[in-house]
């Protein structure tokens, strides 16, 4: 042993305040005053809307499991702009997202209040692949707080938020910070393509020469064949989401595209054209989750995590039961609906994982927005437009807002939080109560669905 310097357990001086602790300056508009239902330790009689009884007459969704555990609330969420940001590092991006989330907390929050940090990231580019969460939180000055990286490909930060919810619901944390970050545009296109394929099934699927564009194109081929859909049906997803993203100041590709532009763009992997594929983006997003015990200390706008569901499936498409649906997403959705006690008809908007145009069509069906094979019709009829019955991807989705892999899930929740708190600006859906986020890892090996509820409106 060398010198026996004692461990410095008593660092001199006070811990610095979490600066800046921006006071919220958002106009909360709408005059919504949260009521305070009895949530702690008791069964809330959640309204059950949009549910169809099963054939066997059983109640489809059982809310009983919510008894005896804390409810979880999103008290703040924020994201950096998504796009190409050569001046940023993964740590500076993550810090900006956390600042944005903190800024969204109505009464502000001290960093000492954060009990747990979960960072979603695939780790594109390698960088600090090991211990990347402590490396990100050290940059924030959150030394000492347990911090973990979660990896589930493109669903990394959706799963990170789920873990924050688990931490809060279990009582291990009063406030947990979950987020995600990815830096994808500072590499050569070849290196990027290497990383874009690392979540594919490596030994068999990838060795047929696919990245995710290829695997989703295979799904698209099966879907178009099975349901007599067309490439134009795919293009309509791009047209809608670009139109939405054009109104989002944080969107990566914030411009509109026409049906012809989408359909006639160069083919990447047929039937997918360049405009059927999301971009690779830099970005970060962060979500603050608090327990029902403390939520009122931070906000009067209670955005409850009404339900979260997650599921895994075979990593390789060839091993799955279906090529025209994503079973993991379907299961995740069912579990989320079950726990929230609401069905798809109750939703006021949804952010779905449209990494490729086909993925949004599959999402409509996996999440029960329509029957199998009817997604193109739902889309073409305008039902998922911003003024439709169920606006989907008001943010622009992955297609237009961008897809910084590890940040995407938390980014979706940021849009949902903004919508539910009336902070979505030009994209605002009128007085929403329920919003859903749908985050898929890889081509469907993992999926996580969150349903948020703005309390006081239901």
């Amino acid at each position, binding site marked *: 042993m060398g010198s026996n310097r004692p461990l410095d357990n008593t660092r001199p001086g006070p811990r610095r305040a979490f600066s800046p602790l921006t006071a919220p300056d958002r106009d909360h508009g709408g005059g919504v005053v949260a009521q305070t239902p009895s949530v702690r330790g008791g069964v809330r009689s959640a309204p059950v809307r949009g549910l169809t009884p099963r054939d066997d007459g059983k109640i489809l969704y059982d809310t009983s499991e919510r008894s005896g555990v804390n409810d979880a609330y999103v008290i703040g969420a924020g994201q950096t702009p998504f796009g190409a940001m050569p001046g940023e590092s993964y740590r500076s991006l993550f810090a900006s997202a956390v600042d944005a989330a903190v800024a969204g907390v109505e009464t502000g929050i001290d960093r000492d209040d954060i009990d747990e940090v979960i960072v979603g990231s695939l780790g594109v580019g390698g960088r600090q692949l090991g211990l990347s969460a402590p490396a990100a939180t050290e940059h924030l000055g959150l030394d000492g707080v347990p911090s973990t990286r979660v990896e589930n490909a493109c669903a990394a930060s959706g799963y990170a938020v789920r873990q924050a919810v688990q931490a809060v619901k279990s009582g291990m944390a009063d406030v947990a910070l979950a987020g995600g970050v990815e830096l994808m545009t500072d590499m*050569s296109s070849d*290196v990027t393509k290497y990383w874009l394929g690392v979540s594919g099934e490596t030994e068999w699927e990838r060795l*047929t020469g696919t990245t995710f564009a290829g695997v989703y194109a295979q799904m698209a*081929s099966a879907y178009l064949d099975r349901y007599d859909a067309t490439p134009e049906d795919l293009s309509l997803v791009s047209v809608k989401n670009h139109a939405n993203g054009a109104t989002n100041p944080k969107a990566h590709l914030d411009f509109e595209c026409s049906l012809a532009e989408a359909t006639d763009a160069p083919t990447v992997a047929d039937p997918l054209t360049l405009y059927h594929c999301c971009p690779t983006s830099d970005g970060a997003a962060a979500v603050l989750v608090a327990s029902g015990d403390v939520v009122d200390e931070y906000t009067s706008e209670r955005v409850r995590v009404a339900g979260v569901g997650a599921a895994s499936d075979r990593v390789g498409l060839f091993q799955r039961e279906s090529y025209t649906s994503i079973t993991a997403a379907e299961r995740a959705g069912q579990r989320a609906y079950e726990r929230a006690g609401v069905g798809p008809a109750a939703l006021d908007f949804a952010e779905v994982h449209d990494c490729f145009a086909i993925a949004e069509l599959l999402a409509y069906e996996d999440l029960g927005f329509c029957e199998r094979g009817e997604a193109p019709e739902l889309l073409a009829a305008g039902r998922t437009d911003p003024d439709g019955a169920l606006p989907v991807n008001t943010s622009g989705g992955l297609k237009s807002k961008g897809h910084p892999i590890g940040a995407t899930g938390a980014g979706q929740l940021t849009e949902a939080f903004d919508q539910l708190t009336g902070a979505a600006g030009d994209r605002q859906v009128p007085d929403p109560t329920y919003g859903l986020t749908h985050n898929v890892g890889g081509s469907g090996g993992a999926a996580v669905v969150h349903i948020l509820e703005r309390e006081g409106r239901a």
Partner: protein
Amino acid sequence: MTRPGITGVGAYAPRLRVTAETVAAAWGRFDAAGIETTAVPEADEDALTMAVAAGRRALTAAGVDPGAVAHLAFATTTPPLAEGDLTARLTSVLGTPETAHTQTVTGSTRAGAQALVGALEAGPWGEQVGLVVASDCPRGAPDSGIEHAAGAGAGALVLAADGPAAVTEYASHSHPAPGGRFRRSGETETPGLGVTAYDRETFTSTLGRAADQLDSETTADAAAVQSPDGKLPYRAASTLGVETETVAAAETVSSLGDTGVASVFLGLASALEEGARSVLLGAYGDGAGATVARVEGAVPVTVTTEGGERLDYPAYLRRRGEITREEPAGGGAYVSVPTWQQTIPQRHRLVAGRCPDCRALNIPPEGACRVCRHRPETYPTVDLPGTGTVEAATRIEQGGAPPEFVPQQSQSGPYVSAVVALDGPDGETVSVPAQVIAGGQSVDIGTPVTAVVRRLYTQEGVTRYGFKMQVAGLRA
């Protein structure tokens, strides 16, 4: 002891062709007399994959199970590895016994005939058989006559005690005459000094001296003579004691180009297919040496050598890798060699596993059953016949390929990646991802496909061979 006879002949040549006019238009001249088109290997073909294709056809023609092979010889001047036992992979892919005696013969375009003589002298093998495969894809400098002539192809002979086509006599001759055509160690392009009269004299006299040892009274329906171009074999007709028409009756060089060690076997296959019942083989390699043999009798032949798609010159240069990208930096999906090794039965021979609980087929046969989710200790194996149907497919275009597939795309253009339902023995299927060889076209769902073995990709210098699916009947 009686020598074994030939009991089956197989021949294979790639479907791609480049015409003499195409090369002439590019260079202002075409330096390979008597050649109209040459066969061009696809980017994922090499001497080993062509050997597999010919070997399988020979075994099919002979009606012999691969398990009966006791002696396996592989002849090529263009082995994909200068060192490394390629017969082990040939054995694995063909499904021939691991205990078979194997040899690689190389270094001369008469290596196929040398391997044949070696097998004749080693056999017969009782109830078992010998398999001699000759496969070659020579290269020269792009502006050279050797490259203009260079073709590709493979021929294979199954030898057995009761083979109906007897090799009635054979003879060899060596003559120290260097400089005609040679390749130094470590090089891929074969040059020659181009001393025309010397080359021609060495070619004709060495073959002639070998033929002088044969019974001169016997005639032949066809003479399969080494064909570095479409002119030299006819020059050797008189020293071989045959008419030029007899040489023409077994020629493949005009359509396939110079097929190196495969030249004589491909000629034999072609002559037999045309009905010849006595064929003189005249194999020659610069340096120089010749081996001649006489084959008498009818024997089943399975030949796939007809041409398909014709390449323009840039496409030809791309296939040759002359103007294409190497694998870019940044890394490909890493599958270590030991990990790869565990999948060899599936990659090489489509060996599936059958779930002992629910009987579903599984590839790879490991972990929980894809259907019933039970996890058996082991999966009993099932050999799949190699036919299947496309279930989902995409054509990966520019920008869609991961780095380790950039060289393939750069050389061959867009490729089809699919999920294919492979047929099981009892009407069931098992789905696998596979590239589908479709001549650059898209593939519809429901398209029937058959398995072939090709180069999949190369990592850490080790080329991984495995099955791809080919659109049934593809040649166009």
